[in-house]
């Protein structure tokens, strides 16, 4: 693990964006200077440090994968003992160029920015990376919030994918089949996506409340039912694009599309909506009566029942709300970027939302930041793929690894010999089973 050093600058900005909270609190009652408290906490297993180290570890393992999959670099390792510098230089070159492109595609490209400042380029080119990052992040915010909210109520919503697919279907169908004026059409389409996802989530919540069917099993199964339904639906008359023979629906008219900012940039109203919804979920969770109930049920269903909370009703409502959020994510995807239904229209946003929620530690604002990090990885991955020729799949690996380390803070703590943090709230694991 420690043989590779070539992970330099690129990971820094992501660290910054992933850090959900400022430096942890100081010990009460002692009069330490800020500096000593900071240093003391620097190497303890608190949320920020574990998150940063998780990203760091993931990038190192990603670097190893890049190296072992590159035949030219591997050749230099055959004479490593004779001239180690060749191997190290070659490894550094391939890894640093890959991660540099990841950074340029996700945050900013120094060349484009300097061109803009010196009058040679456009501001659009300078802001394209950020635009791409936010475009990819927007649906993930919704699906991440869906999973996070359900988690807080003690439910594991793996059905984000299916709910997003149903949201896509409803939003797109409402978008292209209802002849409505410009703003109304968009609102109706978004609400249709919300309702579709909510219905799909409701099924799982209702079954859980009525019969105790485990939501993990039912939502996994509902994911596939939704995906198969989509592949059937887009080939039906009235849905399929009459000018096409392949599996694609009619396009969503402009009146129902999420408007984008600034011409050439793809970033659209979806990300604004996402921030507003994150604020709404934060309010729902921490300030509303329903939020209190769901947190009580999540912490201890038996105690909540004794206290007079209807656990079944909470489960049903919670899954409907979570499903609605994921459905909005699907709607953002189809109204914001895809503009038509295809079998893969929802991509992987449901499962990515799961990772986003875990990375955001099931808190609304944490989820928002995590979604932006994932969006950045995805946007950077596109550039990495086209410029350095390193498969976009590396991004999937990085995302999965980050979340594995986040979910197992004890592992990170053991690898880096971190001190135990007093104020650590690292318990993302729920450990409930079926």
């Amino acid at each position: 693990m420690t043989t590779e050093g070539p992970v330099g600058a690129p990971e820094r900005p992501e660290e910054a964006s992933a850090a959900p909270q400022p430096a942890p609190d100081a010990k009460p009652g002692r009069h330490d200077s800020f500096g000593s408290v900071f240093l003391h906490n620097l190497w303890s297993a608190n949320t920020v440090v574990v998150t940063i180290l998780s990203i760091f570890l993931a990038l190192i393992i990603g670097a190893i994968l890049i190296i072992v999959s590159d035949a030219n670099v591997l050749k230099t390792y055959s004479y490593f003992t004779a001239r180690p510098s060749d191997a190290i230089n070659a490894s550094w070159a391939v890894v640093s160029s890959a991660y540099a492109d990841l950074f340029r595609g996700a945050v900013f490209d120094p060349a484009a920015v300097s061109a803009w400042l010196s009058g040679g380029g456009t501001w659009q080119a300078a802001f394209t990376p950020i635009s791409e990052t936010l475009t990819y992040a927007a649906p993930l915010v919704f699906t991440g919030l869906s999973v996070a909210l359900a988690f807080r109520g003690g439910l594991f919503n793996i059905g984000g994918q299916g709910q997003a697919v149903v949201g896509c279907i409803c939003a797109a169908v409402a978008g292209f089949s209802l002849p409505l004026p410009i703003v109304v059409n968009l609102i109706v389409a978004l609400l249709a996506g919300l309702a579709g996802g909510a219905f799909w989530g409701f099924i799982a919540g209702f079954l859980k409340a009525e019969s105790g069917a485990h939501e993990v099993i039912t939502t996994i199964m509902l994911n596939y039912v939704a995906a198969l339904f989509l592949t059937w639906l887009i080939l039906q008359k009235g849905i399929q694009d009459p000018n096409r023979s392949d599996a694609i629906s009619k396009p969503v008219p402009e009146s129902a599309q999420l408007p984008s900012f600034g011409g050439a940039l793809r970033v659209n109203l979806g990300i604004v909506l996402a921030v507003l919804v994150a604020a709404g979920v934060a309010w729902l969770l921490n300030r509303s009566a329903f939020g209190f109930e769901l947190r009580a049920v999540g912490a201890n269903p038996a105690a909540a029942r004794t206290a007079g909370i209807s656990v079944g009703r909470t489960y049903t409502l919670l899954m409907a709300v979570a499903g609605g959020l994921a459905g909005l994510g699907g709607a953002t995807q189809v109204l914001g970027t895809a503009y038509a239904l295809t079998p893969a229209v929802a991509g992987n946003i449901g499962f990515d939302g799961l990772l986003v929620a875990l990375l955001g530690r099931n808190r609304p604002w944490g989820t928002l930041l995590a979604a932006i990090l994932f969006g950045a990885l995805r946007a950077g991955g596109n550039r990495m793929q086209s410029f350095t020729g390193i498969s976009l799949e590396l991004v999937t690996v990085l995302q999965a690894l980050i979340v594995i380390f986040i979910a197992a803070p004890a592992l990170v703590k053991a690898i880096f010999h971190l001190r135990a943090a007093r104020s650590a709230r690292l318990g993302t694991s729920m450990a409930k089973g079926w």
Partner: protein
Amino acid sequence: MTTALAEIAAPSRFWNRPRRLGVALVVLGIVAAAVFGALAPAGNARFTISQNESGAAISINGQVGAILFGVIAIGAGAGLLAGVAGRWQTVLLGVGIVAFVLSFLCWQVAGKFLPLVDTASGTLQLALPLILGALAGVIGERSGVVNVAIEGQFLMGAFGAALVGTIAASAWAGLVSAAVGGVLIAAMLAVLAIRFPVDQVVVGIVLNLLAAGVTGFLYERVMQTDAESFNQPRQLPIWRVPGLADIPVLGPVLFNTNVLVWFALLLVLAVHLGLSRTRWGLRTRAVGEHPTAADTVGIRVRGLRYVNVLVAGAIAGAGGAYFTLVATASFQKNMTSGAGFIALAALIFGRWTPFGALGAALFFGFAQKLATYLSAVGSPVPSQFLNMLPYIATIIAVAGLVGRVRAPAADGQPYVKS
């Protein structure tokens, strides 16, 4: 909590499980007789005992058959409603479901033919990875470790089989490395779920993504650039047992096939006997139901769980070999396309038992085979809806509409010694 209440309340109710099943069967039978019978064209439905249209065939008028089998299903349902003795209930349920399926087939096949041998062997082939994946699930989950990472183990197995199978130019090396690939994912699952008690469902889902990412990445970087030297594995040979292979229908299906089929079927028997008759099985069940009690009598809970998860990983990995050594001749990105989750469904639908898993896997395999057949003959029933069958059946099973399924008590709960 809800579970316990329902179980205590059940005997006193008139609408107990057999009666509810009876009503469901009667409704299905009426649908079959009325709808399938009315829709069936007048031609004969021919079920040929061969790979194709030729040869001996069981022939029945489509309309008559659809109505006849529908009436049989109604009769079976009525028997359940009347309240027959316990041991006859399962028989009647089986008869009713089979009659419903046959009625459906009579409608679909009327005027056409259905090659029985081809259908049976296709069913078994499609069920093959499901059987192995579900068995892996049985072994892990009976000892209390939830395995949602079957999909990842399949992918890793399929990838390992293709890569090593090509480099070593041997299908057997491919099969072994498929098992190793499965063990790799299983090892991560075991360490994270047992040593660092992370939520097992979370770990499973993330490992699926990791496996998809790693295999996809290496596929694009290594296999796509030079498919000939990295992605053209030899196929597992087809073995024919002389004599036995000449038995009609069963012979070609069971005794003229690849070795993975025998491995899977024998493994079902072995796991069944192992779980019910051996010391290992008793301990596995004890650890899965009540780890504290097992620990008290001196069973090493975590050690046993490690062993079981790793063995399960090898089995699921071998199941992944099906995709590159049997079904197709090369690895593709995400080629398992959800088979791991169908295997999970088979495990749950089969109530966490080896033979239940086998039955469920065969049922799901049959549904898939039927879906391809029906879309090939241009049936009005969309293949997507038949492909939904495994998932919907599992939802119905866990929702307790057809008898409740119950997981091992400690499934998914990490054991931390106090």
